[in-house]
């Protein structure tokens, strides 16, 4: 009887139960709740007070989509992804191949590339703020070539600067994923290509790139998700999404509308729209990386 209900080893269910409860409480329930809130007129209630929430259909979505600041934040995140994602995929693939090929000082090189990834964003933002400030060291090296207004307070450069920061910070993690994938690409393929006279570039293009295709898909999807979650960098690096909203992100608006201004309903609608966008981009990535 117990076997029929719970399987041959019900002990498995018993010891996995805490994790199942965790997923239900911290993932499934909030996910459903976020979607629910987005269709209702919702305000925060004082503890212990229960309020009636009125069903408002798509009103929150309409409010979100017609708000110029929300529109701008979605445009900003597209700019961010257009810079960050191709750079991430190409640089991490190339650097992982290089790291995979070297035979000396391998640990030292790997550590150098991983260290920004394991370091707190808040720390590194503190450093970049100084490096890229008006009279920072980057501008003093560039001299007359330095942009004016400077990087982080420049309408056109604020978001690209953030995209570069995030690419630099996260690259180590994606290099790690590609290194794992490269271990599975058979060495003989490279050797036989070499004897057939293929150069390093040809070997990279015809063996490495197709050999790590499934990892490329994972890197694409993860970097899109990380990009869509952008909050800390615009909040700190550009002083709350400045100048004039040029670097604001949807998650920054979720925070401002939902928690600072007390409109969790509109904030949830922005979140749902963001997830739909991520889903669509992931779908396109899957199509693009499919074997033809």
């Amino acid at each position: 009887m117990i076997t029929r209900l719970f399987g041959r080893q019900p002990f498995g269910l018993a010891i996995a139960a805490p994790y199942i409860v965790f997923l239900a409480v911290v993932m499934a329930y909030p996910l459903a709740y976020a979607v629910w809130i987005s269709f209702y007129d919702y305000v925060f209630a004082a503890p212990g007070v229960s309020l009636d929430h009125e069903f408002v259909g798509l009103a929150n979505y309409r409010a979100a989509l017609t708000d110029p600041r929300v529109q701008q934040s979605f445009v900003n995140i597209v700019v961010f992804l257009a810079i960050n994602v191709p750079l991430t995929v190409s640089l991490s693939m190339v650097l992982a191949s290089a790291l995979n090929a070297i035979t000396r000082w391998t640990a030292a090189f790997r550590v150098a590339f991983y260290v920004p990834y394991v370091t707190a964003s808040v720390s590194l933002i503190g450093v970049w703020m100084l490096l890229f400030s008006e009279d920072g060291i980057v501008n003093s090296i560039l001299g007359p070539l330095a942009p004016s207004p400077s990087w982080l307070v420049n309408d056109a450069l604020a978001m690209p600067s953030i995209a570069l920061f995030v690419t630099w910070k996260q690259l180590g993690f994606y290099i790690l994923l590609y290194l794992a994938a490269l271990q599975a690409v058979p060495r003989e393929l490279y050797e036989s290509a070499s004897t057939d006279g293929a150069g390093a570039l040809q070997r990279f293009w015809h063996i490495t790139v197709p050999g790590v295709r499934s990892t490329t898909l994972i890197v694409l999807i993860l970097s899109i998700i990380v990009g869509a979650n952008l909050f800390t960098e615009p909040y700190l690096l550009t002083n709350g999404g400045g100048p004039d909203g040029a670097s604001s992100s949807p998650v920054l608006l979720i925070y401002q509308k939902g928690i600072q201004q007390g409109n969790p309903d509109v904030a949830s609608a922005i979140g749902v729209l963001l997830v739909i966008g991520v889903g669509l981009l992931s779908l396109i990535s899957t199509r693009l990386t499919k074997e033809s």
Partner: protein
Amino acid sequence: MPRTLKNVVFYLVLALMALAFFAPFYFMVVGAFQENPTNTPGDLFPTDGWTLQNVASINERISLVRSLANSLVFALGVLAGTLTFGLLAGYALARLQWRGRTSLFVVMLGVQMVPFQLLMIPLYVQVASYYQLGDTYAGMILPFLINTAAVFIFRQFFRALPESIFEAARIDGAGELRVLWSVAIPMVKPAIATVVLITFIGPWNEFLWPFLITKDASIQPLAVALANFISNAARAEANPNGVILAGACALALPVVILFCLFQKHFRPSDIGAGVKG
């Protein structure tokens, strides 16, 4: 080009790239101990102007000991939860036949795809209003209590063990918990080292969630306290750059040192398995 020259150029290019990844850390550490961190390349290797004043100044604004202790409690809480429940779940998924095992695995794959930020508002409502856990360690830890990537890594390692040792232990009369504790766990020690490293780094560096859930400075982790200092109070300092860099060092160094010590456990194959499932 001759082969050796080609090799030298290759290493040189790679070294320059590595330098671009490492240079900001040099700037951070040197600047933290300078009376006035340089903005000109000529002074990147300072000979004088060394000071400990920046550390004292940041410590006046945000008690370093208290906020480092808060970061530690947060990270260790997550670590304890992940090791306890993650090992159990990973073992159950890898080695035991029970109903729902496949569904759980599919849900885990899905979880990796849901952006935390969509859950942010409902989690905030739940944790702050329903459970009244604002400004508590429990409230900080709850959303990260079990790291799904760690469960994947444990599952992967438990699956790689031969079934015969489990059969032998059961024939000897060991109960399931005993098998897990005395046979399975000792054999996945390398996985535990990997998981300890990656699970510790996450909450130590986490900003957004503790920032939302803690308003009381006495419970804020260092990442939150330092971010508040950067965005509000830094301008009032005589040497704001040096003070910010001193704070950045205090937050970064524990993890960088931990990582350098244990970097051999930061293996591509293990962590790749955690992401790809």
